[in-house]
């Protein structure tokens, strides 16, 4: 019987109770060409070290929970196959540009605050009135925002964005893309409320269009494009507000 093939996973470890700083720990895992990096991490947790901490759920690129740095690249580990790296070692780290809670788990607090700030939901003042039936929308109107609605909040785009890592005021790719998604929705009436948040300081203007958020996005959302479009809307709104400040209208 042939010896079982293995490969090495170098895993970022950090336990706040005992560690002053992070360290890497090497694990030898079975190599199976059908396995993804998440399978290998789960195998380590089940068979070698139960204290290894990571997030995951669906295993099919939908929940957005298992985003990590795989050899320095932000990836959904459920979609990163071992065979694409074998026989070289794989280095697994928590997503960069986020504080690390423990091992491979990052804090999502800052992201959640930014996401909520852009009000990623349809805003109308007539939601209690259903007498008119559904809010109708044509396929062409749907096409204007559908791409941006595919975001799964995996935060890979934040890990790929150099601005997100250096500028706290910047709302970041996913939050801005979702804000733009609702601004482009023909059923929505909340653009002014969102722009009040998006146009402040570096919230959107911090983006320098590096474009790597779009490169790493596993759902092809194109946050970089959404942000540039939102900037154009914001620039128009800025001049409108300059000419006609709030409160001076009828």
């Amino acid at each position, binding site marked *: 019987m042939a010896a079982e093939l293995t490969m090495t996973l170098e895993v970022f470890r950090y336990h706040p109770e005992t560690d002053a700083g992070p360290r890497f720990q090497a694990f030898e895992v079975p190599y199976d060409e059908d396995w993804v990096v998440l399978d290998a991490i789960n195998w380590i947790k089940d068979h070698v070290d139960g204290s290894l901490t990571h997030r995951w759920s669906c295993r099919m690129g939908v929940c957005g929970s298992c985003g990590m740095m795989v050899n320095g690249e932000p990836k959904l580990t459920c979609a990163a196959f071992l065979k694409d790296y074998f026989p070289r070692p794989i280095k697994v780290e928590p997503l960069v540009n986020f504080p690390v809670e423990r091992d491979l788990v990052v804090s999502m607090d800052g992201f959640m605050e930014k996401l909520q700030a852009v009000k990623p939901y349809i805003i109308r003042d007539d939601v209690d009135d259903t007498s008119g039936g559904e809010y109708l929308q044509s396929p062409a109107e749907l096409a204007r925002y559908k791409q941006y609605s595919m975001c799964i909040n995996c935060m890979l785009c934040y890990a790929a964005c150099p601005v997100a890592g250096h500028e706290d005021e910047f709302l970041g790719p996913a939050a801005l893309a979702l804000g733009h998604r609702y601004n482009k929705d023909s059923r929505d009436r909340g653009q002014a409320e969102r722009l009040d948040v998006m146009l402040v300081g570096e919230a959107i203007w911090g983006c320098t269009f*590096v474009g790597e958020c779009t490169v790493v996005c596993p759902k092809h959302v194109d946050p970089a494009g959404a942000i540039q479009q939102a900037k154009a809307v914001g620039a128009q709104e800025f001049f409108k507000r300059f000419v006609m400040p709030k409160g001076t209208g009828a």
Partner: protein
Amino acid sequence: MSGRYHRPHRWAWFLERPGYGRFMARELTGFFVAAYLVVLVVALGRLGDGEAAFAEWLAAVSGPGWTIAHVVALVAAVWHSVTWFAAVPQAMPLHLGERKLPAPLAAVVMGYGPWLTVTAAIVWWVMR
């Protein structure tokens, strides 16, 4: 207990991904484009001073150093233009009904097409 771990800021962040390097190259080419605009403004100023002044300026910028500077500025301007034309369809997507125009076609419609049209018009105006 030391709480959450914050990675240190990376000053050499632009070396971490090829895409960051391409971004920096695009931004740096802007410097050469801006510098060449200054050269053109000076040229216009000398042209306004008369034929002799312009001829003197032309002689001053015809050495090998200036030739190299012109080539560098041309390469930088072309790189800057091409990378921006590639980015235009992201910033200004064109829709035909439910369909989004493919990015290469949108780049031609909004970038290369107008660029070549204006260039051809200028060449025609100068050569007529």
